[in-house]
């Protein structure tokens, strides 16, 4: 299956990755090659096979829903590129 430029643009938008227009065609070709190659899985009949849900046979543990961590906003924010006054800052989204 060949991915056209519009499809690549749509996927890139879903992934929130800006792709320059000049790269869309080449990228579409690369992605199509990979998708064509994985297409060989269709050779195998998987009707009635359960999809794998867990790679090892362990039961996921449960714990009480309690606060066990926190209380250090400065550490949480220390790597934020636009942090200000104890919050993560983003471009204005409401007028």
């Amino acid at each position, binding site marked *: 299956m060949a991915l056209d430029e519009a499809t690549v643009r749509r*996927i890139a938008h879903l*992934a929130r990755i*800006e792709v320059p227009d000049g790269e869309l065609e080449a990228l579409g070709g690369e992605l199509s090659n990979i998708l064509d190659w*994985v297409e060989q899985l269709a050779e195998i009949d998987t009707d009635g096979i359960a999809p*794998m849900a867990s790679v090892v046979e362990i039961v996921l543990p449960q714990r009480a829903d309690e606060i066990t961590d926190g209380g250090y906003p400065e550490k949480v924010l220390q*790597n*934020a590129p636009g942090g200000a006054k104890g919050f993560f800052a983003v*471009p204005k989204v409401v007028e």
Partner: protein
Amino acid sequence: MTVLNELTLVEARDALDRGEVSSAELTEAYISAGEASRPLNAYITETFERAREMAAAADARRARGEGGILEGLPVAIKDLFCTEGVLTTAASHILDGFVPPYESTVTANLWREGAVMLGKTNLDEFAMGSSNETSYYGPVESPWQRPGDNRPLVPGGSSGGSAALVAARAAPAAIGTDTGGSIRQPAAFSGIVGLKPTYGRCSRWGVVAFASSLDQPGPLTRDVRDAALMLRAMAGHDEKDSTSAPVPVPNFEDNIEAGVKGLKVGIPREYVLDGMPPEIDTLWRQGIAWLEAAGAETREISLKHTKYALPTYYIVAPAEASSNLARYDGVRFGLRAESGDLGEMYERTRGQGFGAEVRRRVLIGTYVLSAGYYDAYYIKAQKLRTLIAGDFKSAFAEVDVILTPTAPSAAFAAGEKSDDPIGMYLNDVFTVPSSLTGLPAMSVPAGLSAEGLPLGLQLIAKPFDEITMLRAAFALEAAAGFDVRPGFVAAA
């Protein structure tokens, strides 16, 4: 006189135990070796000052009769493990300047046992690659060269910096992560041992996530016994990782020399590839002969869905990556591309911050998870995974371990495969099946290619049976007697 950076990890431990050398001296030797190895570009961040402090503290603990199982031993850390107060990049532009305020569980376990951090090693960006050429910080060069040919070779990937340092005697041991072969393939390319534990054996907490159902930390070392020692320090149940297995950590060195008499070794007939160099098959046959001579019983087994493992992986891993990498949005850490519009800020940040291979995989993952394609690709791949796991389960009803080649070729030259994504993916053809099924597997250096480059053999074992795998690996290592050195060995 002992050349300190020629000692294996266990030899260095024993020398420390006997008081023949201090951690400060050992660490200084590896700092010098690291400096001498700078042309390999194996470190993203050297932490030599911290190493000196940690070594002094280890010597003080040893003087008080205290200390863990790695007390005073220097190790190098793949730059995918978060280290408190030390830049952690995942070799990506998008993590520019990220200094974690916390420590990964595996590295915390190493420090608890007294290990000394030499630095953070180079890797493929977000561990996506088989050659260490996708790093934002530039490629790593292998310490190996083809005789009579000075073109740089790749060290393998994604744990390429870790593998190159251990091979060049610039670190006695290193840690990496393996998602589809990222410990085992660079170990094979670099003539060292690389071990991927059972999924859940080592905590993933604090490891920058690539594909969460596949990622597993493990050691890269010069020999099998060193891998056993490192694994013991790294492993253990961790409440902070819900997939961490609540199983006891044995002393993996116990019984390592017990031999393979009576051990049943499976030889999967499907582990061949069109166009594979005959030397790979020759070495595999040699490995079979070695184990038989040591008393093992080998028998042919069938893992009939093997050829579908790689395409299955290239649906599952990108799908998980596209979810995991959604967190890099320019808001909480790392790079931010400025824009007055939030949506545009996200797209620009991710457009500028991700390299070509990461972008490719995130887009593939986004596509296979998108409405209308989820069942056809993602669910289909997870069903194949069930079938592949069934193959192994049937095989392990008959055999104790499985022997295969690690990679379909020796190391290749830089640039040789970078324009051919699928050709690059084929590097992992023999390592991916055990990744998809969470099984422990390791590579042991076993011989040389016609070009004079190292080749590895892989052992795969039952879940949480690293003990048996290490015992077989020790026998294989003894029979192979691999003692060839790379062209570049760091002088301390």
